[in-house]
């Protein structure tokens, strides 16, 4: 198996060091960049499998870097940012970032997210008909969802919500994004629908809806689906 290649763009040496050791010891191939310019050049010359991008770079706004990168780079981008900048995170996700982590973060969390992002995506492969883990089984052609081999009765909205999550596994979906995709552009501020259906869906698919392992809450930002974390 090919070792996945990860490019870290962060100006803080201690963070680069921490990420290098964490990722290398988990068998990833790591490349490091300390500036926006250097990072963009490395992405262009040799696109990595994942980019880990810090939003606060000395020589360029992280959002601009992300936008430039997204002009040609299609693989996952994970954002690292300092605490309490929910607006920043939502902007980055709207600009094409797949996931984000807030500093200080736990390396274990980072690794789990990277594994999630590296997994093959269903939406790119039309032939995949059944997706499953040890508990949950989703048959996309017959629209049947089973939990521990028992058929779940999902309402049409609950089913579309679940499929949206499954197709974007590992990716943080913002509240606006989900509302637009499921209910349409007119419902983008109707977050109460989202709360109700997330709670209903969790009750049906999660083992413990109060300690969810599939649909994770990203505080102030949105939700993230993790199938095999």
């Amino acid at each position, binding site marked *: 198996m090919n070792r996945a290649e990860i490019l870290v763009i962060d100006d803080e040496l201690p963070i680069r060091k921490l990420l290098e050791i964490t990722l290398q010891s988990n068998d990833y191939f790591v490349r490091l960049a300390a500036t926006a310019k250097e990072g963009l050049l490395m992405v262009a010359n040799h696109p990595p499998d994942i980019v880990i991008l810090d939003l606060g770079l000395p020589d360029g706004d992280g959002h601009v870097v992300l936008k430039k990168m997204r002009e040609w780079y299609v693989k996952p981008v994970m954002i690292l940012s300092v605490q309490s900048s929910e607006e920043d995170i939502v902007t980055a996700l709207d600009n094409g970032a797949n996931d984000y982590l807030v500093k200080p973060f736990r390396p274990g969390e980072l690794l789990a997210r990277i594994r999630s992002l590296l997994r093959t995506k269903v939406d790119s492969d039309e032939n995949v008909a059944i997706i499953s883990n040890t508990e949950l089984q989703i048959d996309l052609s017959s629209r049947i969802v089973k939990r521990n081999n028992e058929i779940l009765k999902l309402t049409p909205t609950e089913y579309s919500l679940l499929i949206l999550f499954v197709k974007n596994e590992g990716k943080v979906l913002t509240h606006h994004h989900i509302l637009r995709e499921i209910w349409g552009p007119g419902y983008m501020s109707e977050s*109460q*629908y989202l709360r109700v259906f997330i709670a209903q869906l969790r009750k049906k698919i999660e083992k413990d809806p109060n*300690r969810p392992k599939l649909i994770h809450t990203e*505080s102030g930002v949105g939700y993230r689906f993790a199938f095999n974390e």
Partner: protein
Amino acid sequence: MSFFLFSKIPKSFQYLYSIIIVCFVAVICHFSLSFLDYRIIALILLLAVSIIASMFNIFPVLLAAALSALIWDYFFIPPYFHFRIASTEDIVLILTYFVIALVNGILTYRIRKYEKELVLKEEKANTIKLYNTLLNSLSHELRTPIATILGASDNILSRNKKLNDNQKSELISEISKASLRLNHQVENLLNMSRLESGIIKTHNDWYDITEVIYGVVNQFEDNKIEQKIVVKIDPQLPLFKLDKGMLEQILYNLINNASRYTPSNSLIRIDANSKSDILILTVEDNGFGFPPDEIKAVFDKFYRLKNTKIGGTGLGLSIIKGYAEAMGGRVVLQNAETHGARFTITIPAETSYLNNLKNE
């Protein structure tokens, strides 16, 4: 301190009020001219000027003094309706009147200025005292984890071979705990400065309170705290439109406090229910509770219990109060029947029952 209130009236209004008061008194005096000697009226006008001096700044007072002298001369000293003064006695009288009014005004003004300075000095002294308390508790709260991190990591680096695996992992776990504590304190300081700046605004949106509560509780359970958390939420609880970040901070600080100040294996109970558009959250523990005479003070910034040995900045509870009030709600502390502490947070907010969506 009532003069301060008056001296906050805008300058132009102070002039206006001075004129109105002097004229008003003069009109009343005019009607009493039949039974009062005009010299007595000078005293009454002087009284009015003194009252003005006790309320307003120096220039409106000078205006009142000058105006009242002129009015007295024009309307009350014979010949009436003339500035001309017939007798030498009256000339002496009006000059004396003017000087007394002036001195009166200046003296009262000086006293007020002096009092103002005293209050400012006192405030400054209080700020310095507060600042020292903050520095003391902060340096303790920040230095303890830093000392742990430095000491433990230095141990691992320089005595690596002499330490067995068990000792090493213990040191590393200490580093991890100290970092979490440091992180929490920095978070508290940032929150406090946000509240202090006064520009804090609530970002309200619809939230499932169950999700918010468990989001915070799960953080503590992931960090394996030594107490047991029991959550009881009314299953009929509606959605609330409120600031989730603030609610999370309130809950986090309350649970953090309970876990810090109660013995291991204590019970932390979290209840959530609602009563006519008011969210009621209680966080209760079965620890030692609070000394009844200090319950009122614990929400003050930097306040620390008198007999406490455990560190702390005295910021946690004041942040809870600040956020609860920013959301239009309040927080009440009582000692529970179990003698532990019970915090009750009430937040009025818009609610929504979307029960008709079940089949969509």
